[in-house]
């Protein structure tokens, strides 16, 4: 093996229709090195990886400038298949798994070990049967190499989201020729424990000589596993240093070009024990796949921000989804002295509750409709807002102007980046989509808000804005907020109290100032 680095990218340039998105990117990566790539959404990380991976979209939009060298030789991948053949693997932010297949089948899809049979001898290889035993062995080996246990026989559709991510990684690991693995925000959907396991498996892979490009918004993870850190901002590399020589605050500063308050240390934590109970939940059970709630008793005080944390799959997401009627549920929920019937989203909304779903694209948004529709729809349907009456009340008509005004108001307030309020929701970036989801809930002017994973998969800057918006909403409008998140730090930065869910039950409620160890103990106390 020569001394040439495994991967070298020189002077990479890319523009989309005259809009320069990458300028003079230079990267080098040696065997076994772990490179942490960070930057805000829109900084150009994904485009850079698409260029490296030979995605069609790059060629369709006019190709790119500069060159890519693999082991000292210039390469240009026309399709992702060539990149795969050259030993580059990629785990995408969005899953590409077949829901009805098991983990093993997905890991080895189209590369299954096969058995010859009489039929295949006669009619050719296509009639070979799968060698299930060998498949089990290989997928077990790949899972083993990853160092995180997942059930190889479970179908993807019934897996919690974290396990789907691990299945994707195991699939890349099961390839023999893998030399370079790109992980695009693999930990965004993982709980802290799972993320920790992933970091460990990154270290293992790197020991085996696999180079890794690790894209993440969780900066401490980068410092924990990476050899070097590359920070991008506005299509340029603004920092390229060994990980040992930098810090989270320095990276953050470089990413956003300004200093972001990490928060959490200086703020007040209000004592809520004297406040009136706003909602009391008794014996709540929710049948949400992989987020079963088995019996939750919880009192939520008026005007507080209550955090609900816990490991993935323990049921923290089931609580808001069950109460808001998205999944079958039972038990009693009393809001302001009135019982809320479960299983009726309409009744909850009528009772002045609102819900920001963790499933932005599936539940939270009308992707194909305008921002105006997304923001105004719920308030229009529930509270008859933004309607005008025609012919003496014979018809109720959409009041397009009122709809535009309210949307513009929230676009300003939440600093949503969009070309106009008529833009389709699917065209926005994740962070901005999330803000639209918040705007939708705010437009209902609720007195009680469930925000389920409001910061999942969005960048640092957007995250701070979303949390600030929630805090402001709580402080200024006196709205009781229940925020569910897998990131404890995030909960601690905004909540007054934090309830930890474990095994489908509340294992304890602590003030936000309690130590991480105490929370950690609660998280694992009743794990099932």
């Amino acid at each position: 093996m020569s001394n040439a680095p495994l991967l070298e990218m020189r002077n990479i340039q890319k523009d989309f229709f005259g809009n320069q998105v990458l300028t003079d990117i230079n990267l080098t990566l040696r065997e076994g090195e772990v490179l942490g790539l960070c930057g805000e959404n829109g900084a150009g990380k994904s485009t850079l990886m698409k260029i490296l991976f030979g995605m069609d979209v790059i060629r369709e939009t006019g190709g790119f400038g500069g060159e890519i060298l693999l082991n000292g030789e210039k390469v240009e991948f026309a399709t992702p298949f060539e990149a795969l053949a050259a030993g580059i693997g990629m785990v995408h932010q969005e899953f590409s798994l077949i829901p009805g297949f098991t983990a093993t089948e997905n890991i080895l899809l189209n590369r299954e070990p096969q058995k010859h049979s009489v039929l295949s001898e006669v009619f050719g290889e296509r009639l070979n049967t799968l060698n299930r035993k060998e498949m089990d062995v290989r997928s077990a080996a790949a899972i083993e190499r990853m160092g995180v246990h997942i059930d190889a026989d479970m179908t993807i559709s019934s897996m919690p989201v974290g396990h789907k991510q691990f299945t994707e990684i195991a699939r890349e690991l099961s390839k023999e020729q893998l030399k370079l693995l790109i992980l695009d925000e693999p930990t965004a959907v993982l709980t802290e424990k799972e993320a920790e396991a992933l970091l460990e498996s990154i270290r293992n892979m790197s020991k085996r000589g696999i180079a890794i490009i690790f894209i993440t918004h969780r900066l401490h993870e980068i410092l924990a596993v990476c050899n070097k850190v590359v920070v991008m901002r506005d299509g340029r590399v603004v920092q390229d240093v060994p990980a040992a020589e930098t810090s989270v605050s320095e990276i953050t500063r470089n990413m956003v070009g300004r200093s972001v308050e990490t928060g959490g240390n200086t703020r007040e934590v209000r004592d809520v024990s004297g406040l009136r109970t706003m909602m009391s939940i008794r014996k709540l059970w929710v049948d949400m796949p992989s987020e079963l709630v088995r019996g939750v008793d919880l009192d939520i005080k008026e005007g507080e921000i209550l955090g609900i944390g816990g490991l993935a799959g323990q049921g923290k997401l089931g609580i808001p989804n069950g109460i808001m009627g998205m999944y079958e549920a039972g038990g009693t929920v009393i809001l302001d002295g009135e019982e809320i019937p479960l299983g009726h989203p309409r009744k909850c909304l009528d009772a002045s509750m609102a819900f920001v779903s963790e499933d932005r694209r599936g539940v939270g948004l009308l992707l194909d409709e305008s921002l105006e529709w997304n923001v105004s729809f719920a308030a229009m349907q529930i509270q008859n807002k933004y309607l005008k009456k025609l012919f003496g009340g014979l018809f109720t008509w959409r009041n397009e102007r009122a709809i535009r005004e309210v949307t513009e108001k929230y676009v300003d307030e939440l600093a949503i980046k969009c070309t106009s309020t008529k833009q389709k929701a699917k065209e926005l970036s994740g962070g901005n989509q999330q803000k639209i989801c918040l705007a939708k809930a705010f437009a209902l002017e609720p007195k009680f808000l469930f925000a389920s994973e409001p910061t999942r998969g969005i960048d640092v800057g957007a995250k701070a804005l979303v949390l600030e918006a929630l805090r402001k909403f709580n402080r200024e409008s006196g709205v009781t907020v229940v925020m569910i998140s897998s990131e404890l730090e995030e909960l601690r930065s905004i909540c007054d109290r934090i309830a930890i869910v474990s095994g489908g039950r509340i294992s304890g409620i602590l003030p936000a100032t309690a130590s991480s160890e105490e929370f950690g103990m609660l998280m694992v106390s009743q794990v099932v």
Partner: protein
Amino acid sequence: MLEKKDNNFNSPSKLNDELKSTITPAAAPSKLQMREMGPLRAMAASFGLPRLIIASFLLLMFIVAPFVGNDFWTQISNVINRFSWNAILVLAMVPMIHSGCGLNFGLPLGIISGLLGATLSIELGFTGPGSFLAAIAIATPIAIVLGGGYGWLLNRIKGGEMMIATYVGFSSVSFMCMMWLLLPYHSPTMVWGFAGKGLRTTISLEGFYSEVLANFLAIRVGENFKIPTGTLLFIALMAFLMWAFLHTKTGTAMTAVGSNPTFAKAAGVNVDRMRLLSVVISTWLGALGILVYEQGFGFIQLYNAPFYMALPTVSAILIGGASVNKASIANVVIGTFLFQGMVTMTPTVMNSVIHMDMSEVIRVIVSQGMILYALTRKTEGGGR
């Protein structure tokens, strides 16, 4: 290595969206792209290339027609007439597309409601324009009941609506084939002459409501040119009502249900009720549509006739630029005009060119070809 395939090929649009959002969150790429393309191509892209090709072909037919001995004005008049017969039927597709129930292949159910209205109106002794109003009045409750049942069924098989709808349409037509014979109709204008019972396959509307709408304010120029103003006004009224409905609170909810049912559910909308409502409206418009068709055509066609109504209607709206879950009034108008124009003009012109009576063969080839084409294309122009 194929497992990466679904990443790259299954969802090119997803990738594009991702790109748009990550690269240029503040600029609209589609507009950028259009600017790059220049005004002509941008216009073509926004109108949809296939629609442009069909429109040009139709235009070519109009130009060629006089040279091969067809009277130009007769042809224009024909196309406008065919448009006026069919537009309401095509409009009936809109509500179900909006609510996410897909294309209404079960249109024959609505048509049967209309046929029952028509025949009962005559049986009960209504004549002249009154028989048209009576037919609508009788067809309405039938359409609501049948549409209700049909909607209830579609709510139980979410995801497979179009398949089930096709069979609902077919089986209802077959069932009615028996009923037309067995129902105790007695009106001498409708029953078989010798037997004195059982309805004829074709019933003339002369003296009933033949051309009641078409003759209202009709514009006649010479012998061969006539614009059925009344029918066009009626179509405009129905289209306006549909447009207005889609702008009401309920209409908005219906569109949201089609766009993302889970979102609608989370926003407190009763998804099943919206879908049911859309099916009922669709069925009722189907009933109304066939009555308008009959008044223009001058005959009631029974038995197997409704079989062949759904596919051309579906094709028309698809050619108009609608997709399986997005449709606008413009899609209806453009699609009906293009489709009916093609199936009217092509056989006539071809016949004159080759001097042989091939019209039926050519009509079948053209109309089925259009259907095939329409069903294979998804969403260019207008749609999304």
